[in-house]
């Protein structure tokens, strides 16, 4: 299998007052197509920094990030923006849908930003909504959806642009156990079905059963998960 996302010796230092904090410390990582990788760790361990760097939202201080064959290090802001649109899908924490749009329009926003909406995009949006079990809620706005339903729409939206890499930030933080389990199972199923490499950052250990691989982030260092944690 080829890697959809490769990080090589990535270091990220962030200013914190007068000092600097090492958010990522020589992180190297490969994520294969169709793989669901979970990264666990306490808050402040650098999980979100990893997503920000892998998601072309922030350039690394040093090291190389390659998404779908495109090198991100040294790319201009415009190019990073284009890469985000073309190659990367984001699923954010609970509330990041646009409040004024129906579920279907959330998905249609993606082709509208890239090129304009055509008939095939509408068909694809309906198909994706069906694949996450949201066909019957396609005309609802976020305020009319439950937390789990919002995350399903969020996942469908992230897949709308056929991304190489799906980056998922704490998808279950606002959900109860049953809903959280469903959402992660859906992510795994979609990653396997579409061949999208999926990196999920979480501190919810109960959802890890659906993942292909689990790594742990601690003080900016990425490593294997101690067996004891999973019990």
């Amino acid at each position, binding site marked *: 299998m080829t890697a959809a996302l490769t990080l090589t010796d990535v270091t990220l230092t962030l200013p914190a007052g007068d000092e600097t904090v090492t958010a990522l410390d020589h992180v190297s990582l490969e994520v294969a197509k169709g793989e669901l990788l979970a990264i666990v760790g306490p808050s402040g361990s650098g999980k979100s920094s990893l997503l920000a760097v892998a998601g072309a*939202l922030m350039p690394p201080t040093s090291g190389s990030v390659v998404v779908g064959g495109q090198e991100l290090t040294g790319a201009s802001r415009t190019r990073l923006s*284009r890469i*985000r649109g073309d190659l990367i899908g984001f699923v*954010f*924490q609970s509330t990041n849908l646009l409040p004024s749009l129906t579920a279907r329009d959330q998905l249609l926003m*993606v082709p509208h*930003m*890239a090129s304009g909406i055509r008939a095939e995009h509408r068909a694809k949006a309906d198909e994706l909504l069906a694949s996450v079990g949201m066909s019957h809620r396609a005309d609802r706005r976020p305020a009319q959806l439950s937390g789990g339903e919002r995350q399903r729409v969020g996942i469908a939206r992230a897949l709308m642009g056929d991304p190489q890499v799906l980056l998922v*930030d704490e998808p279950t933080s606002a959900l109860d156990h049953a809903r959280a389990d469903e959402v992660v199972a859906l992510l795994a199923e979609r990653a396997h079905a579409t061949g999208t490499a999926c990196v999920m950052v979480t501190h919810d250990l109960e959802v890890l059963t659906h993942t292909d691989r689990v790594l742990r982030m601690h003080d900016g260092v990425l490593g294997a998960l101690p067996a004891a944690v999973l019990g």
Partner: protein
Amino acid sequence: MFLALRELRFARGRFLLMGSVVALMAALSVILSGLSSGLVDHGVSGLRDMRADSFAFDESVTSDQFSRSTVDVAAVAAWKDAKGVTDAAPVGSALVHAESDAGVQFSAALFGITEGSFLEPDLVDGDSVGARENGVVISDGIAADGIGIGDVITIDRIGTELTVVGTTGSASYGHVAIVYLPLATWQEVAYGIPGEVPSSAYEIATAIALQHDGELADTEVAGTAAISKQESFNASPGYEAETSTMLLIQVFLYVISALVVGAFFTVWTVQRQPEIALLKAMGASSGYVVRDALAQVLVVLLGATALGGAAGWALGAAMPEGMPFVLETIPVLTGFALIIVLGAAGALVAIRQITRVDPLTALGGAR
């Protein structure tokens, strides 16, 4: 416009409030514009309609010349000889109270002119000034009081009797209607004492009206100084005070509308920051988000201005007769354009913040 229109529908309460403010401003701009044009019409349309390019007044009088200046009729000949001047004619002006033979009292502006000169008003009906002794032409305002051809009007103070021989259009001067009368009759009225009038009284006028090609080479001739017709508006009573007040009010209106629109979209853009960050994280360029936001601004401004403008126009059309109110297409449309352009400029200042929103904030606080 995909997002812009859906947001308009979603946040229709807020946009409706905002749109109402813009609509009311547009309505107000129509009314101010109508009032402004109306005041100008009431103030100086009698002058504006004269086929003169300049007026020469007594050079020692520098303000309110139409009331204060006195020139010698002999200056007409001197002006006719001046370079560039094609014709010159004396004109006398005065504001008087008068009464018709039917007992109607009214105020009027007297314009004394020489028969056959280029200052003769265009007739709507009847004969020209001086068609019979003390024969005068009246403008609409006096005709509206029920005075018509054949009626006799008496000048208050000295009892000079004038006979209406013709009518002209809606000209007025100093907010009253105009009586065009023979210069000699005006001179008798200006002399101010009934009975025998000394011959020297027949040598005066208020100004010399001039027609000329291009700019005047020499503006001072025979103790008189010429100013253009446009400048002479300021020489008529109250004109400058009225127009500058109206202009000030209108400038305020446009500045306020730009600030109100700018303030609304500043708050709106700040509220939308998480959504803007999200759009950018999803790969939208700043340009895309700015274009979308600007489209939203223009939809609001165009819609509200059209509705408010139509309401203002309807209100203006329903103004009672006699109000100084004239709806002119170009000033009204200029007002609309100013509201839209300045409003969009105000909003653009707010919308610029979009380019500074960091998509990283979409990831949430914890790093």
